[in-house]
């Protein structure tokens, strides 16, 4: 009990739980049920107070929600959060965050991690969130999303948000799982086999393998300027939208140790003839394969006042793309190899302070890019590169009084491209009432240009730019969290961000492009969200976001809708023995790269789950784009199309069997 009295003030909390006197421990046995019901443990509002001290707007998507809405890709789950909009160019899915989502970008300004292990590769900085994300969504315990800059702790890529995906453990599988699904009209088939257990010796094991194959849709595509003499080409791209994916996941944990290994290999056929390749030619594809692994140790020391985390990680990403130019197949590759380690200490031994110190180092042993005209001997373009990053960070969460606290943090990064960069953050948090918390946040984040942006040059489409400098984003944010009732929460967030030296693909004449540092971008926005639950098992969450992003010297950004609205409703339907999940999303109109307007749209998705038809079996029916709404997303600068058609209504049946 002593340790309780000693440690609690360190974390700056008045201990309502002391309403239950220490000596009551034995007396509880003697209390009647009526008396127990009147015994106070610890105030729920104190819990909330603790949560609200977090110096960021954190969102969590749980496994229950992933099931309830039938999400099969990470982008679908993230699209339910305020301020996130998707765009899909039939090769990759991209996250737009707080109005920022350059067409053709591979999510380079969002850090994506699995169990804390970074996925962004070292050639493209890519954070892939479609089927190319290397983990089946059914293996996820929860998804954590911190909106805003995370550079002060996480360094590279954490400019607009940090997504951390926490996997399930063997203990949360406890047996076998077999899943199979069919989706029409894409002729998509997928399957997964998972096994997990805590063995008698305490070792937690989980293994999973899965795959999918889809024919895709036959799309009527336009290729303006792709014909002889710059004439237009259009036609039905038959059988050019297929996709296939293989995935394997293993996790072994025991006590403070955990090891995970992730493999995936996804190939997507490309009907758009991207990078101005031959229109309507068969055989275009882009393929991404990952191997990501880490060994992690984490434990508490010094009477639980010191938490130590150490981890060693390695990653490997291989990109392969096939593009035909004037009938000649052109084979492009990008190869990333990296490994490194991180050591982090969290110390709560000084009253009213929570100190974090960390060191992270990553050796990028390989960041190679090639381009090969397969009709000629030899590889035409071969750009070999390597590099490193090292970051040191420190942070203090300082409780100033019962109602005020502050967080101050700084990360210093050094890398082989942009030298030394400083990423500070500061937060002031005021618990205005037991129901209301106000936070004022400031943060800065950097991103060094990646090998693709800086080094790639093939003389056909892109020139290198060794003078390219890194991007910097500064963000100011005010967050209000208010609890209207036990089961009804509101959040408002008002923010401003500005980005210096934005890296964009720019035409340099002669049909060539080059990544260049652009003008300053400024943005402001407001996100309002509500979350209501019912004891009957229902939940409604919704949000409305307004975001206004523009270059300071005039001109808007492509793929930046001003308004986004989200609504997610789930509830059991006991009379039918079903669970219903319905989502509604509105994306307002956005600019295409040619300055024209891509219309806004409403989308509805519906999911129904039956879990009582047979022992161990769950059957679900998912209808995406319920009302068959036609809609488009902006194409990139390196695409024939300025707008790209999206899928109409699709229907999926999925069976999940546990044994």
């Amino acid at each position, binding site marked *: 009990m002593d340790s309780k009295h000693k440690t609690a003030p360190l974390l700056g909390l008045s201990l309502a739980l002391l309403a239950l006197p220490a000596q009551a421990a034995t007396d509880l046995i003697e209390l009647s049920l009526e008396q127990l019901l009147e015994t106070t*443990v610890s105030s729920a509002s104190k819990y909330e107070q603790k949560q609200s001290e*977090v110096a960021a707007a954190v969102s969590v998507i749980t496994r229950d929600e992933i099931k309830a809405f039938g999400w099969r890709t990470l982008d679908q789950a993230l699209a339910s959060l305020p301020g996130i909009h998707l765009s899909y160019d039939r090769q990759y899915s991209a996250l737009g965050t707080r109005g920022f989502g350059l067409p053709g970008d591979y999510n380079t300004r969002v850090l994506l991690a699995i169990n804390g292990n970074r996925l962004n590769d070292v050639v493209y900085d890519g954070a892939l969130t479609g089927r190319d994300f290397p983990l089946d969504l059914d293996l996820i315990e929860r998804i954590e999303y911190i909106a805003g800059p995370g550079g002060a702790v996480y360094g590279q890529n954490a400019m607009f948000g940090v997504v951390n995906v926490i996997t399930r453990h063997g203990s949360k599988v406890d047996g076998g799982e077999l899943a199979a699904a069919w989706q029409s009209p894409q002729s998509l088939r997928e399957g997964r086999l998972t096994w997990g257990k805590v063995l008698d010796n305490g070792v937690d094991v989980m293994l999973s393998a899965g795959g999918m194959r889809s024919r895709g849709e036959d799309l009527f595509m336009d290729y303006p300027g792709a014909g002889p003499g710059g004439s237009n080409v259009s036609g039905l791209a038959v059988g050019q939208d297929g996709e296939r994916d293989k995935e394997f996941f293993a996790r072994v944990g025991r006590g403070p140790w955990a090891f995970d290994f992730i493999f995936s290999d996804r190939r997507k056929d490309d009907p758009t003839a991207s990078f101005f390749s031959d229109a309507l030619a068969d055989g275009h594809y882009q393929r991404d394969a990952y191997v990501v692994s880490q060994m992690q140790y984490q434990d508490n020391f010094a009477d639980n006042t010191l938490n130590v985390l150490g981890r060693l990680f390695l990653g490997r990403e291989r990109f392969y793309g096939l593009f035909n130019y004037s009938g000649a197949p052109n084979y492009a590759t990008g190869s990333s190899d990296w490994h490194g380690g991180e050591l982090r200490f969290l110390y709560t031994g000084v009253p009213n302070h929570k100190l974090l110190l960390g060191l992270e180092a990553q050796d990028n042993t390989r960041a190679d890019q090639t381009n090969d005209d397969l009709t000629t001997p030899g590889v035409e373009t071969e750009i070999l590169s390597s590099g490193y990053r090292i970051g040191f960070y420190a942070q203090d*969460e300082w409780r100033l009084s019962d109602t005020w606290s502050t967080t101050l943090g700084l990360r210093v990064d050094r890398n082989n491209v942009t030298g030394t960069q400083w990423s500070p953050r500061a937060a002031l948090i005021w618990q205005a009432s037991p129901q209301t918390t106000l936070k004022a946040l400031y943060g800065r984040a950097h991103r060094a240009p990646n090998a693709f942006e800086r080094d790639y040059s093939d003389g056909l489409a892109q020139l290198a730019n060794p003078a390219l400098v890194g991007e910097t984003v500064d963000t100011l944010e005010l967050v209000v969290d208010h609890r209207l009732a036990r089961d009804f929460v509101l959040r408002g967030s008002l923010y401003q961000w500005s980005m210096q030296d934005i890296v964009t693909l720019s035409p340099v004449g002669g049909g060539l492009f080059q990544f260049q540092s652009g003008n300053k971008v400024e943005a402001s926005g407001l996100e309002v969200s509500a979350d209501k639950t019912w004891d009957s098992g229902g939940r409604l969450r919704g949000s409305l976001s307004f975001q206004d992003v523009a270059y300071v010297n005039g001109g808007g950004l492509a793929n930046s809708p001003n308004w986004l609205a989200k609504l997610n409703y789930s509830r059991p339907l006991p009379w039918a023995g079903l669970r219903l999940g319905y989502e509604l999303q509105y994306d307002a109109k956005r600019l295409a790269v040619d300055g024209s307007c891509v219309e806004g749209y409403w989308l509805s998705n519906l999911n129904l789950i039956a879990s009582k038809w047979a022992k161990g079996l769950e059957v679900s029916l998912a209808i995406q784009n319920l009302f068959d709404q036609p809609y488009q997303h902006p194409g990139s600068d390196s695409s024939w199309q300025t707008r790209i058609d999206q899928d109409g209504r699709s229907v999926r049946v999925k069976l999940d069997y546990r044994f």
Partner: protein
Amino acid sequence: MRFSTSTPTLCMAADMNTPLRILAGLFVMLCCSSQAAADTQAEYRLKAAFLYNFVAFTEWPADVANTLNVCVYGPDPFGEELDKYRGKNVAGRSLAMRRVNSVDNLGSCQVVFVARPVIGNLARVLDSLSGSPVLIVADSPGAARQGAAINMSAEQSKVTFEANLAAVRRNRLNLSSKLLRLASEVLQ
């Protein structure tokens, strides 16, 4: 920057270990800060007393053995609090405590407490114990609706519980009228 395992704002219904944990970093899953541990200890001291009462107010069929095995399935949140009830006499039967990691090993249990981190496996527990005289207790939102016999929740500083009488009877058990009267809700 810190991650919470869940925020009350956007994660109320489903997440495990809900508000009890505060985490201190994306790459850190700080599973037990001292504060959370202290809160948890007090809460589970009380919940252990409730669990003892649930067992005492359950009507057990005559064919149930003289020792009632109270099993905690998943990571044990009670620590030593539950062991204080070891050997206690309940309606002529004595209590024994067991920790169980897998549904495969629930066969000898008369009471199963499903810990929050593994509440996602409740369906598996129900699959394997349906029809057997076993009292299934949980403390996760919605668990009674999903088939647990009794589900506790900590609200406004106090612990309350709901009962699923249909689930209790399916397992050939009954709950005393006093227990049902004190439940915040009884599902029929």
